[in-house]
C-alpha cells in the first residue's frame, strides 16, 4: 500500500512541475503575441503605401512586366510553405502542411510539377521523414521574422520565377501560410503570389480618394521595375508576420489546454492518493483491532 501511495505522490509532483512549465510557456506566448501583433501593425503602413504606389502605376501606365505576365502554359510551380521552428503549438504546423498537401494535390491534378520551398524546422522534418525533395529551406526566424529574411526568400522566389531555362525555373509561385484571424481562429491559407495580380489590393481606393495623375521618374517602366519586387517581398513579409502571430496564438492555446489538463490530472491523482492513504489507515486499524481481539480471546480462553 505504502509503495503505491509514494508512487502517486511522485506522479503528482511530476505533473505539477509539468504544469509549471506549460503555464510559463503559455504566458510567454501570450506576451510575445502582443509584440507580434504590434510588429504586424507597424509593418502595415509600408504595405499600404506600397500597394497604393503599385496601383497608381498600374492605373496610369500599361502594366506589362515579367512579374505580372500570365504564363501561357505553366508546367512547374513553386510552393513556399511557412511552418514553425518549434513544436508544442498544437496542430499549427500540421494544419499548414495539410493545406499544402491539398494544394499540391490540386496542382498535380492539373499536370504540374511542384518545387517545394520551406520555412521552419517542422516543415523540414516533415519532408525529410518522407524523403521528399526540397529545393531550399530557411529556418530560425519563425516566431519573429525580420524583413531581411523575407528579402532573402523573396529574392530566391523571384529569381526562380524570372528564370526561363534553369533547373529550378518555375511558372507560378504559391505561398501556404497561416492567416491570423483572431486569438481563437487561425486559418491555413494558400495564395498565388506570382504572377502578380496587381488590382487585387485589399483596400481599394474609394471613389472620393481618386488616385492623382502621377509623374513618374525616371519612367513608369523603371518605377514599376523596382516597385514590383519590393511589393512581392512585402507580401512575403506580411505572410511571415501573420504566420508568426498565428504560431504564438496556437502555442498559447495548446499550452493553456495542457495546463488545464495537468490540473485535472493532479486532482485525479490527489484523490487516488488520498484513497490509498485512507485504505492503508483503515487496514492498519482493522489489523490492530483484530490483533487486540485475538489477544483478548486467547486470554479469556486461558482463564
Amino acid at each position: 500500500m505504502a509503495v503505491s501511495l509514494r508512487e502517486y505522490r511522485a506522479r503528482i509532483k511530476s505533473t505539477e512541475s509539468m504544469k509549471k512549465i506549460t503555464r510559463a510557456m503559455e504566458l510567454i506566448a501570450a506576451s510575445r503575441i502582443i509584440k507580434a501583433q504590434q510588429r504586424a501593425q507597424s509593418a502595415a503602413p509600408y504595405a499600404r503605401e506600397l500597394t497604393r504606389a503599385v496601383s497608381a502605376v498600374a492605373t496610369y501606365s500599361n502594366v506589362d512586366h515579367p512579374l505580372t505576365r500570365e504564363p501561357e502554359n505553366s508546367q512547374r510551380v513553386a510552393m513556399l510553405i511557412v511552418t514553425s521552428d518549434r513544436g508544442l503549438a498544437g496542430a499549427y504546423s500540421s494544419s499548414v502542411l495539410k493545406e499544402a498537401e491539398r494544394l499540391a494535390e490540386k496542382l498535380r491534378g492539373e499536370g504540374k510539377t511542384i518545387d517545394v520551398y520551406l520555412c521552419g524546422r517542422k516543415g523540414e522534418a516533415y519532408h525529410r521523414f518522407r524523403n521528399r525533395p526540397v529545393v531550399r529551406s530557411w529556418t530560425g526566424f519563425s516566431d519573429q521574422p525580420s524583413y531581411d529574411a523575407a528579402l532573402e526568400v523573396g529574392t530566391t522566389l523571384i529569381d526562380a520565377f524570372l528564370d526561363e531555362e534553369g533547373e529550378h525555373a518555375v511558372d507560378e509561385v504559391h505561398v501556404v501560410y497561416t492567416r491570423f484571424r483572431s486569438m481563437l481562429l487561425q486559418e491555413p491559407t494558400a495564395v498565388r503570389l506570382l504572377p502578380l495580380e496587381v488590382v487585387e489590393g485589399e483596400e481599394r481606393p474609394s471613389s472620393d480618394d481618386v488616385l492623382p495623375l502621377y509623374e513618374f521618374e525616371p519612367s513608369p517602366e523603371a518605377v514599376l521595375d523596382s516597385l514590383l519586387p519590393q511589393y512581392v517581398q512585402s507580401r512575403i513579409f506580411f505572410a511571415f508576420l501573420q504566420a508568426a502571430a498565428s504560431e504564438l496564438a496556437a502555442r498559447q492555446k495548446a499550452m493553456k489546454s495542457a495546463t488545464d489538463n495537468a490540473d485535472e490530472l493532479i486532482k485525479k491523482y490527489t484523490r487516488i492518493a488520498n484513497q490509498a492513504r485512507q485504505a492503508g489507515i483503515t487496514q492498519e486499524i482493522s489489523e490492530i483491532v483484530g490483533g487486540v481481539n485475538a489477544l483478548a480471546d486467547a486470554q479469556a480462553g486461558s482463564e
Partner: protein
Amino acid sequence: MAESGEHLHVELVAADRTVWSGEAEMVIARTTEGDVGVLRGHAPLLSVLTDAVVEISSAEGGVVVAAVDGGFLSVANDRVSVLSQRALLPEEIDVDEARVELEEARGLIGANDEAERRLRRAEARIRAVERAS
C-alpha cells in the same frame, strides 16, 4: 482628402516600422535622376530613390535627416511618403561601423555591383550623421 494646413504631411516608412511622420515644410531626397525638393503644392510624383540621405525640414523648425536604402518617393495632395526597405535616423547609425564598411567596400570596388551598393549605403549613413551633428 481634406488637407488641414499650410504644411506637407510626411511619412517616412521603413518595411517594418514608421520611422518618422509629421508636418513638414520641405522634403529633399535624391532620386535616380538627381536631387528633388518637394514643397507644398507639388505635382503628384512617384520616383525611385537611390541609397542616400533624405532631409525633412519639419514644421517645428528642426531638420530630420535619415539614410535610406533605395526606395520610393511618392507625392500627392500635399502628402509625401518616403518608402524604403530600410531607413535609419542618425541616432540609430553606428558611425564607426559605417566607416569600417566604407573602407571594406572601397577595397572591393570594381569587383561587383554589390560592393558599389555597400559603398553608397555606407556613405549615405556617414553623411546622415554628419549632417545631423
